[in-house]
């Protein structure tokens, strides 16, 4: 067993690590750990007044402090049926755009870009990209300036309160922000081209489900009252738990989330994938120019999506300010309710953020906060797994560490809200005959042939099962037969289960390997359709008693026959089992 790990992820916000465990040619485990200590923020809010809650919760995370404040305000206002005047909504949108600009430009230029141009940090990068580094700093400073104007200071400002704002900015201030925003557009256009044209490696690439807020009236934006998924489904904000299904894992102080048992992603890439069609102006032109199918399956494009969103923000700011200039400064809306339940959702720069509260007798009695990085944790692990496994096949083991680092960073994780990041560990390349003898000691195995016969070597599993059956071996089944065999699933539970299949280990064609099923279970890149078929049938205990006898295929092209080396292996395995 070997472990490759990034103990302290650099250039991310907070304290996280990622590790991959490698066993022979197989990545057996990837863990995204949050070393950031437990802060129990949700518990800290219990017994506090709603106002105190709104003071405390932004302290979860400095980078997303505005988003936390915004989500908490929306939740509390929903709980007390407070309707804020339009000027308040516009000013809040402005402060939120400030955070997007600040956070996205910090991430793409200072945290992510050094990887792609070969520097350890942005300051070193300045030697070659002097102008970009300087203007990007100004852009980030502009985002900060908006946040300071709206909230009172760069980080953890207290100006936004339930029902409105303590103070509104002067007209001069608003006009200055507007003109400055317009000035930046040419540089932002360059930024979009730069990040959309970066050479993103195709490893890892895999589909996932994307989730984000669904802004009203078919607009692009960062708030909403329902969640929209890339599957087309929508979920009301009150039913957020049907999306998140949080659970605790032992290697992280960040809880993990799964939708229908599967990981999903949130963030700029999720928003552009789900809502990109709604972009207007220059942002729309850029979207049409650069968006491709790869954005749907490669998390590294999150950098490109963030650049696109910076452009969206800069185009949106002058419009908001024009509206604000026409409206008077409203007083803070008072509320009298002392009881209520409310949920507020917003898009933090790194994805969907949910705050949900129950207030009774004027004090918070229940708090649930779900942060974007906690939701992304499962997909971060999965994409690192895919990347690590692919690199291992190619014999590029030495690249795994850096690649995992790159993948994690692309998610722009915000570890304060949750989690640490990259390790790698290895399975011993055992002799399959010895392994089979060991398995037999546990009980007489049931064999199942899996694969597609019309796809050359992919038919090896079925072929082997049929041959075994022809030679009179006991319990041998085909994939197609076994699904209906309820009795077998019941009776077979105490006997080992061995699947025959073509498994691509990047070995010599015909090479036979016998591995525990769970080693390849979560990596569908390895064993295609095995996953959905199995997952519905067997529980975790049984999984531990299941194995895959894999044969390295030469080709899995449609319409071709089984290749010679694989055919020879079939005979070899057949002889051994019948002996």
């Amino acid at each position, binding site marked *: 067993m070997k472990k490759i790990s990034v103990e*302290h*992820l*650099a*250039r*991310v*916000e*907070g*304290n996280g690590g990622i590790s991959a465990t490698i066993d022979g040619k197989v990545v057996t485990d990837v863990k995204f*750990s949050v*070393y*950031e*200590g*437990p*802060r*129990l*923020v*949700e*518990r*800290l809010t219990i*017994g*506090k*007044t709603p106002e*105190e809650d709104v*003071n*405390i919760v932004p*302290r979860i*995370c*400095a*980078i997303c*402090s505005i988003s936390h404040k915004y989500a908490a305000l929306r939740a509390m206002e929903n709980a007390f049926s407070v309707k804020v005047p339009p000027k308040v909504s516009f000013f809040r949108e402005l402060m939120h755009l400030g955070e997007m600009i600040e956070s996205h430009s*910090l991430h793409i230029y*200072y945290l992510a870009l050094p990887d792609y141009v070969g520097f*350890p*940090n*942005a*300051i*070193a990068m300045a030697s070659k990209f002097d102008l970009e580094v300087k203007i990007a*700093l100004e852009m*980030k*400073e502009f985002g*900060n300036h908006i946040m300071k104007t709206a909230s*009172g*200071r*760069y*980080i*953890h*400002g*207290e*100006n936004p309160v339930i029902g409105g*704002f*303590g*103070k509104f900015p002067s007209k001069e201030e608003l006009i200055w922000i507007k003109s400055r925003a317009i000035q930046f557009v040419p540089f932002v256009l360059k930024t979009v081209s730069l990040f959309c044209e970066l050479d993103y490696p195709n490893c890892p690439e895999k589909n996932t489900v994307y989730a984000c807020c669904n802004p009203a009236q078919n607009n692009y934006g960062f708030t909403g009252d329902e969640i929209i998924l890339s599957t087309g489904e929508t979920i009301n904000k009150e039913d957020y738990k049907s999306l998140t299904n949080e659970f*605790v894992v*032992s*290697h*992280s*102080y960040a809880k993990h989330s799964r939708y229908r048992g599967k990981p999903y992603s949130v963030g700029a890439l999720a928003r552009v994938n789900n809502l990109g069609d709604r972009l207007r102006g220059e942002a729309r032109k850029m979207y049409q120019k650069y968006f491709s199918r790869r954005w749907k399956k490669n998390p590294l494009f999150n950098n490109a999506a963030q650049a696109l969103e910076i452009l969206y923000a800069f185009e949106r700011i002058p419009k908001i300010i024009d509206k604000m200039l026409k409206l008077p400064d409203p007083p803070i809306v008072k509320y009298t309710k002392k009881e209520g339940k409310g949920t507020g959702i917003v898009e933090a720069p790194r994805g969907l953020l949910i705050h949900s509260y129950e207030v009774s007798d004027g004090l918070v009695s229940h708090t649930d906060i779900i942060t974007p990085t906690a939701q992304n944790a499962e997909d971060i692990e999965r994409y690192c797994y895919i990347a690590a496994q692919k690199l291992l096949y190619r014999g590029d083991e030495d690249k795994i560490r850096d690649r995992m*680092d790159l993948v994690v960073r692309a998610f722009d994780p915000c*570890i*304060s809200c949750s989690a640490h990041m990259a390790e790698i560990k290895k399975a011993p390349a055992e002799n399959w005959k010895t392994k089979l003898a060991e398995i037999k000691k546990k009980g007489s195995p049931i064999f199942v042939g899996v694969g597609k016969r019309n796809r050359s070597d992919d038919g090896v599993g079925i072929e082997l099962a049929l041959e075994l059956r022809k030679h009179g071996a006991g319990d041998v089944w085909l994939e197609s037969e076994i699904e209906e065999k309820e009795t077998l699933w019941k009776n077979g539970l105490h006997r080992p289960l061995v699947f025959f299949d073509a498994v691509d280990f990047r070995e010599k064609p015909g090479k036979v390997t016998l591995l525990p099923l769970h080693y390849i279970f979560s990596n569908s890149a390895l064993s295609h359709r095995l996953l959905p078929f199995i997952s519905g049938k067997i529980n975790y205990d049984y999984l531990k008693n299941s194995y895959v006898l894999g044969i390295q295929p030469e080709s899995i092209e449609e319409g071709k026959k089984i290749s010679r080396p694989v055919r020879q292996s079939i005979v070899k395995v057949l002889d051994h089992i019948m002996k």
Partner: protein
Amino acid sequence: MEKVKKDKLKIGIYELTGCAGDALLILDCEKELIDIFKAADIQSFLMAKSDNIDGELDVALVEGSVSTEREKKELLDIRKRAKTVVAIGICACFGGIQAAFLDKKDWEKNFKKVYGNIKMTHTNPIQSKPINSYIKVDYYLPGCPIDKEQFLSTFNRILRGNPPELYRFPVCVECKWNENDCLLNKGIPCLGPITRAGCGSICINHNLPCVGCWGPVEEANLTSEFHLLREKGFDYDFIKKKMANFSGTGIADFLGKLKGEEK
């Protein structure tokens, strides 16, 4: 004139448990950032760079509270390597919001409510404490987050080998400089009198009461503030909670004494 050549000071910036806001604020010193990196030899700054070295240091800036065994170990190691340790932000100075569960049993109960009985495999949790619970701290730079101007002046003085000079008075002083109306006179519960200055009385400038996020000022008259708020008609628990929100261990003694007071 002949230039005096001097070795740059070796500086490390570390983040324990917290919101990373203090480290972020250092990154937010946009215009001065490049100068900071030029003026000192930044050996370690996880948030900003990947080529970090864990060696001997002249100055370590530590943000966040100690909340896991791993962080405790890391902190002890930092102290061994550094000549001077500066606590930055209220989490490092007083334990921060996460130190509001001062009682160990209370903390354990709440930990269980969130994480259940799960046994952590990566690092064990411990009740959140400020860094001076484990090591000697040379200077404190409070704030939630720290203030840019104060950070730059502190950094500058340390680079020149001078001790930092921080405000040793409450927010009220800055509030008067800004010519704000006193909110306490209007019956609004403001923690300005007991909170350390440095933020520029930012909340009161926005017509909002001070929430105490910089922690208590030295020699704060907590009893007087407590009785003042009582006179204004606020109840015992409300005041106690409000004062404790951000103060962590900073007002633990006071809260202990309060137990004798009548409700």
